[in-house]
């Protein structure tokens, strides 16, 4: 039987190759699988498909990573700070008013010129329509006042010190008013039109999104003729595509494959920190043991975060005691790159708290949502056991976890990481404000609360940063969230290209160049 032959063959081949090679590491990667080519087509392999071209009605980073090539924001977040994109200039008129002037001569892919009306159309829609998924991040906009073809004011409900961060992220790309109003949303979603360096060509769902260069781009000329974003959900398949030269960039490489990819000619690995900080949310009130700050400290001290990063993530992470990591406004860098680990002290604290005979906690962790989440949770449970904390671990498939999370029905600890597309401490610490923490961590420290509330509306940037940094110190001591490590994203790349991954995980493809 042919296929059973093949089965036998494959098993045999594997066993033989494994027996003959020392560790089995290089057995699959003989030869030179990758062709070096100077093709001006860039192929990126994502783990999931893009969800929609309705930029206001999704919140997936991987979709936005594609959109940034087709659309433009008013201002753009770069490693060197905010720079103007569609906006020629901007200023604050008063605490609630931001005044903008658009660049001249910008056109949409269909030839329509960009005007202030397009900006009003775009921002009004997301600010007013509460059925849109991004509404929550834009409802702070009261209205957009058009002053001339290129000039407009944005008026906010409250003082918004981080307003420009808001306008340089998911949901703030400027849409073509005229095109959408005459053709309708249906048509726009089928063949979207933006101002960006690449134009939409096709979207085969669960397969690929194809963009082609826009010769009329107002900025620097696009570097690629065609850009293809493929969707390959299975990790091992994505790695295989990279190894055989099928794709130029593959996202979310499993840490275990790093060595194998690096030892193969023509392909390599690049890493970048991300906004995701893995943490244990802890209930700070109630009858449970975690209500005692000494127990929370003991948990922190019992977990060897560096060991998790080294062994499970193959170094693809950075330990931290804060969620506001470098690259975010308000980051407290003295808490970054450090972590506490002292199991003896942890045992003492547990004894002091009256649990000398040990204690039992419940912990929930998602399974398959974050890089090595399940394994990390299992390892933490083992580490906590060493100091006498028995953890009943409940691993939940993501949708179940998300539902339980929303219901706030977790017990003592939960393992989670939040995104932060604002690059500002306000969103990062939002969940620790008393109002949002209720039922979740129940965190309530009046000192922290007053700092957070004050900073949120403080239009003085320096003072605001200080307030946030101070708040982070308090949080690191109170431990409503026990911070563990910041996750890196791991990309496999074909060495024919230069690619420096970004903190925000966007693919600005013109930052990617041929060697």
């Amino acid at each position, binding site marked *: 039987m042919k296929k059973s032959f093949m089965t036998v063959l494959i*098993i045999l081949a*594997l*066993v033989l*190759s*494994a*027996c003959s090679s*020392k*560790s*089995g*590491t290089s*057995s*699959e*990667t003989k030869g030179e699988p990758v062709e070096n080519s100077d093709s001006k087509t860039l192929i990126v392999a994502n783990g999931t498909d893009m969800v929609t071209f309705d930029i206001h009605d999704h919140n997936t980073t991987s979709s936005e990573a594609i959109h940034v090539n087709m659309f433009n924001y008013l201002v753009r977040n770069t490693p060197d700070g905010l720079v103007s994109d569609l906006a020629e200039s901007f200023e604050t008129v008063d605490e609630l008013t931001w005044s903008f002037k658009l660049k001249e001569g910008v056109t949409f892919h269909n030839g329509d010129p960009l005007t202030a009306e397009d900006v009003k159309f775009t921002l009004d829609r997301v600010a007013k329509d509460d059925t849109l998924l991004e509404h929550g991040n834009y409802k702070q906009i009261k209205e957009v006042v058009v002053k001339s073809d290129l000039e407009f004011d944005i008026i906010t409900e409250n003082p918004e010190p981080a307003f420009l961060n808001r306008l340089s992220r998911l949901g703030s790309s400027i849409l073509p008013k005229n095109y959408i109003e005459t053709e309708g949303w249906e048509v726009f979603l089928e063949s979207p039109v933006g101002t960006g360096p690449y134009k939409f060509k096709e979207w085969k769902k669960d397969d690929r999104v194809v963009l082609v260069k826009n010769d009329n781009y107002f900025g620097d000329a696009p570097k690629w003729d065609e850009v293809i974003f493929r969707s390959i959900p299975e*990790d*091992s398949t994505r*790695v295989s595509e990279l190894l055989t030269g099928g794709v130029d960039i593959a996202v979310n490489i*499993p840490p*275990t*494959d790093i*060595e*194998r990819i690096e030892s193969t000619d023509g392909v390599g690995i690049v890493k970048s920190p991300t906004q995701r900080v893995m943490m244990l949310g802890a209930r700070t009130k109630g009858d449970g043991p975690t209500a005692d700050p000494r127990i929370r400290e003991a948990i922190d001290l019992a977990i060897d975060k560096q*060991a998790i990063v080294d*062994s*499970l993530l193959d170094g693809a992470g950075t330990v931290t005691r804060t969620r506001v990591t470098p690259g975010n406004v308000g980051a407290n860098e003295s808490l970054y790159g450090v972590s506490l680990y002292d199991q003896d002290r942890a045992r003492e604290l547990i004894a002091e708290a009256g649990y000398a005979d040990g204690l039992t906690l419940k912990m929930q962790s998602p*399974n*398959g949502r974050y890089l090595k989440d*399940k*394994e990390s949770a*299992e*390892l933490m449970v*083992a580490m906590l056991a060493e100091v006498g904390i028995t953890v009943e*671990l409940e*691993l*939940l*498939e993501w*949708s*179940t976890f998300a539902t339980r999370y929303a219901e706030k029905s977790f017990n003592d600890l939960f393992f989670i990481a939040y995104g932060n597309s604002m690059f500002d401490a306000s969103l990062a610490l939002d969940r620790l404000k008393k109002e949002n923490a209720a039922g979740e961590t129940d965190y309530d420290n009046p000192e922290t609360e007053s700092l957070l509330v004050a900073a949120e509306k403080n239009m003085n940037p320096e003072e605001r940063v200080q307030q946030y940094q101070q708040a982070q110190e308090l949080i690191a001591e109170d431990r409503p969230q026990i911070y563990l490590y910041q996750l890196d994203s791991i990309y496999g790349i074909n060495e024919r290209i230069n690619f420096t991954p970004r903190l925000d995980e966007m693919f600005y493809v013109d930052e990617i160049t041929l060697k």
Partner: protein
Amino acid sequence: MNVVIEEKVTSNPNPVTKRMKKQAFRLLKSKTGMLGIIIVFFVTLMAVFAPVLAPFDPAKTNVVSRLLPPFWMEGGTTEYLLGTDNLGRDILSRIIYGSRISLMVGIAAVIVAGAIGMILGLIAGYYGKIFDFIIMRTVDSILAIPTILFMLIVLAVLGPSIPTLILVLGGTSWVTYARMVRSETLSVKERDYVRSAKAIGAKDFRIITKYILPNVISSFIVIATLNVATIIILEASLSFLGLGIQPPDVSWGLMLSDGRQYIATSWWVATFPGLAITITVLGVIFLGDWLRDELDPKMKD
């Protein structure tokens, strides 16, 4: 058919022993049947005596000794005969313990499926009419939805846990039993001796237990055996989709699915559980085929 009749006719004082002897003899002759029995026997043994047999706690992690190869390869130690996984857990111990859940889920699901299928099949076949209509349309509906899709939806909704897994596996597999039991019941019901029993006023319960069940039981056992094999494979597929057995429990399907990331770098993590599944399923199918030949002459080649 002749096997059964023959033995009813012979005046041997102890027909059962003779029949068993005959079967044992044929079992020896049937190489695959023998192989099946041996495999199933050993796997069962492994499952029952897991705590005695396993050298380590299957959940014991050890970061220092991660991804150690099996003992015959360079870097491997005889401490961990089949090597360790990504968390430094002993693969041999995990396979031994994994046999428990893989088998338990398989057998429990078959019991659930068999019970539902038997009862509904009997009702449909014996009482007919509206019962038959409702039950058979339900069977049609379930057959029209691919099992894996059905299970995927249910597990996603209810959350994957062992009891749910068993109930869902049972809840989708009963249709095969129901169909078989129904058609057997229909044919037996029309036989003269059943009709005359009915005519002299025998109770339904008696007719079912005395005349119908004995005719159904052999096909039933055959289907049940083969069903265990299907369920073990299904459990592995569900693990691939993230909805199978959840840690800290361990099953072969979960090990295989988790290990797929390491196929190219640490082949042993996935290969051994894969072999465990393949060999066990092979054994169960061989056993099932042999049982079919022996118990169910109608289904024989």
